[in-house]
Structures are given as structure tokens and as C-alpha cells.
């Protein structure tokens, strides 16, 4: 316990000193807490400042953010528009001769579109493909193994139901 080690120089009256003595005694009596106070405070501290559990969900990567997706969509639409415009213009200015060139340009644009799509939405795309594969596998299992080998029977005709 750290006790104050200074004094009030204005107190020169012994009767005031006596009152201060009584106040000190009263103050000390207020510290008479139930046993184990310190232990309970430490337990509360331990509980409060314990390290948080590892986060199960992490923040999405930057390339999956909404802003980047929107920007990619704009680029995609712009590319399509430009492709169509170039193709139409080429067809009108040089009919026949530039058809192959225009088609090649369209192919390039489409390839570019797929590349951008993969870049910007690879995660969601992968998730969709994975879900699709899972669904196809389930259908295969049901088709080849019949109802009893499928998970559906477990749900509907579980233990004790039949």
C-alpha cells in the first residue's frame, strides 16, 4: 500500500489533526473488503484481456472488392462497345477485304474479356464451378447408385423411420 508522504502545511490546529486522524481510520476501514478481492480482480482481468480467438473469416482480397469489380465491368463493356464499333466501321469502309481482320479483332476482344473476367472474379467463378461440380456429382451418384445410395434417403428414411 502506498501511503501519501506529504503533509498539508496549512493544518496547524491540533483539533484538525485529530479529525484528520479519525478520517484516516475511517478511510482504512473502508478498505475492509471481502477476502480474496485481489484474486477476483486478477481473474476478471485475465478474462477480459485474454487473446481473442483466431478470426474464422478474413477480409476479402482487394481484387474481389466491389469497386474493382465495377471498374472491370466498365472496362469490359467499353471493350465490347469498341469492338462492335470497330467491326461495323471496318465493314462499312472496306467491305469484304477487312472481314477477317474484323473477326480477328472481335476474337481478341473476347479473349481479353475472358481474361479480365478471370482476373476480377476468379474467386466467385471458382466457387460457382465448385458448386456446379458438386451438384453434378450428386446427380451422378443418384443416377448410378439409385435412391438408396444418395444422401437424400438418409434424410428422409433415417434410422428408426422405417
Amino acid at each position, binding site marked *: *500500500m*502506498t*501511503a*501519501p*508522504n*506529504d*503533509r*498539508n*502545511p*496549512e*493544518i*496547524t490546529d491540533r*483539533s*484538525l*489533526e485529530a*479529525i*484528520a*486522524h*479519525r*478520517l*484516516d*481510520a*475511517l*478511510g*482504512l*476501514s*473502508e*478498505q*475492509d*473488503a*471481502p477476502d480474496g*478481492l*485481489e484474486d*477476483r*480482480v*486478477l481473474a*476478471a*482481468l485475465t478474462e*477480459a*484481456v485474454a487473446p481473442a480467438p483466431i478470426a474464422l473469416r478474413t477480409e476479402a482480397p482487394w481484387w474481389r472488392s466491389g469497386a474493382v469489380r465495377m471498374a472491370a465491368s466498365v472496362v469490359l463493356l467499353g471493350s465490347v462497345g469498341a469492338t462492335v464499333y470497330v467491326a461495323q466501321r471496318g465493314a462499312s469502309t472496306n467491305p469484304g477485304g477487312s472481314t477477317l481482320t474484323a473477326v480477328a479483332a472481335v476474337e481478341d476482344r473476347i479473349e481479353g474479356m475472358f481474361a479480365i473476367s478471370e482476373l476480377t472474379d476468379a474467386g466467385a467463378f471458382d466457387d460457382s464451378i465448385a458448386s456446379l461440380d458438386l451438384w453434378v456429382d450428386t446427380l451422378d451418384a443418384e443416377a448410378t447408385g439409385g435412391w438408396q445410395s444418395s444422401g437424400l434417403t438418409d434424410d428422409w428414411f433415417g434410422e428408426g423411420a422405417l
Partner: protein
Amino acid sequence: MRGDPDPAARSPADDGLGSGSSPGVSPGSLSEADSEAADLADVVARASGGSERAWEDLVHRYARRVYAMANAKLRRPELAEEITQSVFVTLATKLRSDAYSEMGRFEPWLFRVTMNRVRDEIRRAKRQAVAHDPSSFAGMASAPAEPAGLDANASAGLRDAIATLNDADRAVIDLRHTGQMNFKDIAALLDEPLGTVLARHHRALKKLKAALEPTTDASDQTEPDEKGTRS
């Protein structure tokens, strides 16, 4: 104790007087205070770094003083303990989050947090008392423990006298005699000059003396009557 050549030899009760007539503080006391401050700063730094031992040290130094401050105001031991726990949790949270900016003023910060928590609790209890039953707040108080050296009547009289003080005077009395803070830290906590705090403490003691005197006079007058020396 006045004239004590060794300040370190004084008992805590003597140190806690705050009433000595010696205006100066001896160099020995100064160096002792400095070393205590340095030691405390070290403990606080280690606690903020997560040292369990440092936290044990802080809790053992201050838990009962924080509890006393809360219990003196609320007169509810279980609530005082709850507040004590929450005060230390607040300290830990602030220290760990680097939000602690009271370097060298740990005690004022600690007791400011305590006073704020107690004030919040009193407000909350008053709101509930008004909302439900006006008499319920008064009925919250449990029987206080009697201090050593003071009988029940004397301590009750002293508590009643303290209750007559205004908030500013009472804060100084509580922080000094219940929180056992030194005047410098009280001044820092209240954000007032040291001289103002000393003057307020002096004035509060005089008010307490005045409030207690009628009781003393009454007992002085009653005693002769019981002995039959007065008609």
C-alpha cells in the same frame, strides 16, 4: 509525525494524516517519493507490456484503495467490488491499446476512472430509485464496518459530517483519506493548483470540526447529568 527524523519509519496511518504542521518536505521524503514514482512507472510500463507479475503488483497496490473509494460513496460492498473489477479492466484495456497517455500520473488517472465509475453508478441508482421507489436508494446502504479506534457512534457521526460537505470539499477528503493520495496527485486529478487543494482540505477539516462539535458538546453536557453533578 512532526519531527520524525526518518520519514520512512512513519506508519501508514501517520503518513495518511495530511495534517502535520511541518510545511516542508524533507529531502529524504523527496527521494523516497521519487523512487516510488520511478518504481510505479516501471510497473505500469511492464503491465502495459502484458506482464502478469506487474498486474499482480498493481492490483495488490491499488485494489483495496479503489474498493474503499467506491464503498465509501455507495455503501454497497458487492457493488464496490464490481466497480473495482471494472476499473482494473478499463486500465488493462487502455494500457494494452496504447490509449494510455497519462505518463507519470498513473494514480490520478486510476482514481479519476474510479470516481467516474462511482458517479455513473450513483446516477444510475438514482434514476432507478426515482423510476421505482424513492425510498429504495436509501435502503441500498448496508451496515458499514466500524473502523478500528472509532466506535460505531463516532464513525457514524463522522460519516454524517462528511455528508454535509459540498462535492468539491468532499472529493478532496475522500481522495486524501480514503484513496490515500498525496496532495500533488489530488491536484493533478482535480486539475487544480496544489495551493487550492491544500486550502480546500484545510477548509473541509474545519467544516468537519464544526459539524462534529455539537455532538461533542452534547456528550460533554450529558455526562455530568448522568453523574448527577449538574442539576
